[in-house]
């Protein structure tokens, strides 16, 4: 009925959704409040996850247990795509992952966001041949990480990310955000 791969995805998703809900990051008001500099809950949550995650990911990578999977640094795709995403995100008040979570905690207007995103994905699939020869063809640096780009050991970069992240936390707490 369900493959083990699907089962593993489901269990991981349940834990992910549970933590997103407990962190109170799913709600429209939390997402928009961060963009309005009123409440930085979602930023605190994201940066904490990233800082903890990078240590574990690179530890396992050094042991040869896991493989990295960088997404391509396609300049046109990332810049234009992220700008469109940011615009839509501010209007919708959810991102793809949080929309289904918000629906789970009863925020039923997230349903229209989910439907809109499925429609958007369908539109993208139709326009893909066009984007491929335009935006996506401009300049592509490939699947690259900061350690390769800067020629530095990854643990040095991880320390720099931690210093930056903790500084942002201290600033938030001082400002009471």
């Amino acid at each position, binding site marked *: 009925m369900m493959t083990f791969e699907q089962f593993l995805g489901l269990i991981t998703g349940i834990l992910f959704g549970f933590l997103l809900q407990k962190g109170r990051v*799913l709600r429209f008001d939390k997402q928009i409040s961060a963009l309005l500099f009123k409440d930085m809950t979602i930023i605190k949550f994201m940066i904490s996850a990233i800082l903890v995650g990078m240590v574990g990911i690179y530890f396992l990578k050094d042991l040869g247990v896991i493989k990295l999977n960088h997404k391509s640094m396609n300049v046109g795709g990332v810049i234009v795509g992220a700008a*469109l995403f940011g615009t839509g995100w501010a209007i919708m008040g959810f991102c793809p*992952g949080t929309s289904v979570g918000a629906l789970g905690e009863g925020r039923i207007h997230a349903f229209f966001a989910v439907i809109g995103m499925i429609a958007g994905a369908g539109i993208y699939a139709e326009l893909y041949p066009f984007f491929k020869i335009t935006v996506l063809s401009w300049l592509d640096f490939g699947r690259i990480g900061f350690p390769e780009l800067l020629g530095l050991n990854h643990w040095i970069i991880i320390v720099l990310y931690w210093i930056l992240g903790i500084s942002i936390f201290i600033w938030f707490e001082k400002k009471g955000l």
Partner: protein
Amino acid sequence: MKLKTKDNGWNPYFAGALVGLLAVFSAYATSVILGKTNYLGASTTFVRAAGYIVQFFSPEHVANNEYYLKEKVKIDWQFMLIIGIFIGSLISSLQDKSFKIEKVPPIWEKNFGSSVYKRAVAAFFGGILAMIGARMADGCPSGHGLSGNMQLSVSALMAIFIFFLFGILVANIFYREKEL
């Protein structure tokens, strides 16, 4: 620093750190059990969902579409992850009684009134725009924001910066009434 927030949630630093651990365990488990490392992500699933809907009306169209062929229309690990997020959030919100049927969120109502229709239209069109952008950038705040930055990807830092730059710009224009 408090362990519980004012709205009875968990401290965001703590809950976020647990998501970091979950991402690491998940990368480990998928590598060992499935033989390939899966990272948390969400937006590709919306392509697959669209593929299933289009397939219902025209299977040939999906079979000949370059993008559906590239992303493969199937119920995979990430598709189940998304279903899991819904279930996990439902369980958590019922457990701490924060589950609430909300048709129009407070900040929205303050700016645009209590029309369910208006909110639905904005969520729908915002969703279209956001997903076209996420697919073009090859990731959303999960795939780029969390997973990409954990891997120290160049594209991820660039993407999250521009997500927020435009999100902040548009939100500040769109929601003029900022106080609740």
